[in-house]
């Protein structure tokens, strides 16, 4: 299947990626070519009794046991920007709201 540039820009937004115009043009062609290849899967017959890969290896869950974790200072040690014990990011809410 061939994606349009609008499709790629939509997926880029879902992926939180700001593609440049040139990147979006190039990725549109490249991703379409890869999709056309992987679509070769459509010829595979899936027998009714077949399970999917996920069912063969169900997600294992850890028991909920409290244990020590990263300290606040440790978690903040690599922060690109911080304020006291918080990560600082651009304002999310308008002033006064």
């Amino acid at each position, binding site marked *: 299947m061939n994606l349009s540039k609008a499709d790629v820009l939509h997926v880029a937004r879902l992926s939180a990626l700001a593609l440049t115009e040139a990147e979006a043009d190039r990725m549109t062609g490249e*991703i379409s070519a890869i999709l056309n290849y992987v679509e070769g*899967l*459509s010829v*595979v017959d899936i027998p009714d009794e077949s399970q999917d*890969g996920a069912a063969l290896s169900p997600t*294992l*869950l850890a028991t909920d046991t409290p244990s020590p974790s990263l300290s606040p200072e440790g978690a903040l040690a690599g922060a*690109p920007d911080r304020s006291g014990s918080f990560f600082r990011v*651009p304002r999310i809410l308008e002033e006064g709201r």
Partner: protein
Amino acid sequence: MKNPFFSSLAEFARGRDERRFSIEEVTRYFLSRTEALNPSLNVCLSINQNAVNRARQIDARLVRNKAISPFTGYPVMIKDNLEMEGYPTTCASRILSGYLSRRTATAVARLLSLGVVVLGKTNLDEFAMGSSTENSAFGPTRNPWNPARVPGGSSGGSAAAVAAGLAPLSLGSDTGGSIRQPAAFCGVLGVKPTYGRISRSGLVAFSSSLDQIGPFAGSGADALEALVAMSGKDPLDMTTVDRDPAEMRSGYQSTEVMGARIGIPEALFGEGLDGSIRERLKDLRDALSGEGAREVSVTLPHSRFGINVYYLVATSEASSNLSRFDGVRYGFRVKNPADLRAMYEETRDQGFGDEVKRRILLGTFALSAGYQEAFYRKARKVQALIRRDFLEAFERCDMILTPTSPTPPFAFGEKTGDPLSMYLSDVYTITANLAGLPALSVPVGIDSHGLPIGAHLIGPPWSEGRLLKMADRIAGLYPMPLPELHAGHADGFSEGGRR
């Protein structure tokens, strides 16, 4: 691969215990060789400045106490997507610039507890996505056998490190062939264990259901000991399985070529395989038969869909795993973004390279509303069929032999313009990840252009020991010459290499 002190882990341990060399001496040798060759090969992204100190501490302890393990004092390099507390982990990505690890990967911690000396962290394709190490934000690694050729990937730095004799042992990670294909390209042994054998805790996640850590080493016997040391249940990785790692030693000891049933999927030796590789593997098959192994014809009818399945399953998982890199908590962040959304989007656009972005987009698409059933779900169902083919084949054979790579090491730039042709380099290795099986690549000599060729063995779950013994027997049939190290330091230590 050669060094003046030892040619195997066992010989290292003997030499150390008989005081024929100190750990400091050995550590300094490998560090200075790395310093000499790294400018031309670009194997290491960082050197451990504390390595000599650690070596001295180990020497001081060895004066009073016996070594606790053959690994005590043994030099190791690790792929730079494995965490080590207090050291940078870049994943060869700009997005992790400035990041220092807050923990140590379980596999690395287990080796450290036995006393290994980590010399440095090795180059890779960004976030382990690639087959040539050309996707590194810090430039490609060069193949020690020919600096105009790629070392393979994504663990190209770790493979080249062992091939060039910068370390006798290194660690990589393998999601679709990222240990085995560079092992073949660099003429060393590389092993991907059974999924669940080794904890992935501290390995920066690419595709969590496929990723496994494994070693590059000079022999199957050395790789075996590294696997035993790293394996076993880990509460930090729920997919690790509680099995005795020593079972691999028994598997190694009880395996012989005589009587081994080697599965041959004839279709994989046909079209698309380089002629010199096909010939060498034919020679290997004849040699193994001559020593009493029995060839068993097997068919793996769904394996030809391996690449299709992989690029849906792996990219879907990657799109989720890589969402954590957003510029908030660590690593790179763009300067003065207009708002929060722009901060995320521009940080990720500038921080990630092309291949990573391509895979995030593809994975996000495969999981998006309206397409999940046709793409992701279908891929998971075919994945189950690929695994079933293998398990049926292993009812009739002990292991399966295939090529590791369809081609010899290719030239820089040869495949970077066409992502699909790069993906096809993994056509023989990718199914072992999809089926969760152990597999390895063992060198079987060089071709007429002086480039290494690898043979690929895939086994049933938990059969690493058996595969490693066969690898040692195969390696015995094809003694490898040493690579001539180029770029003005043929002996590794000439003027050009010193900085």
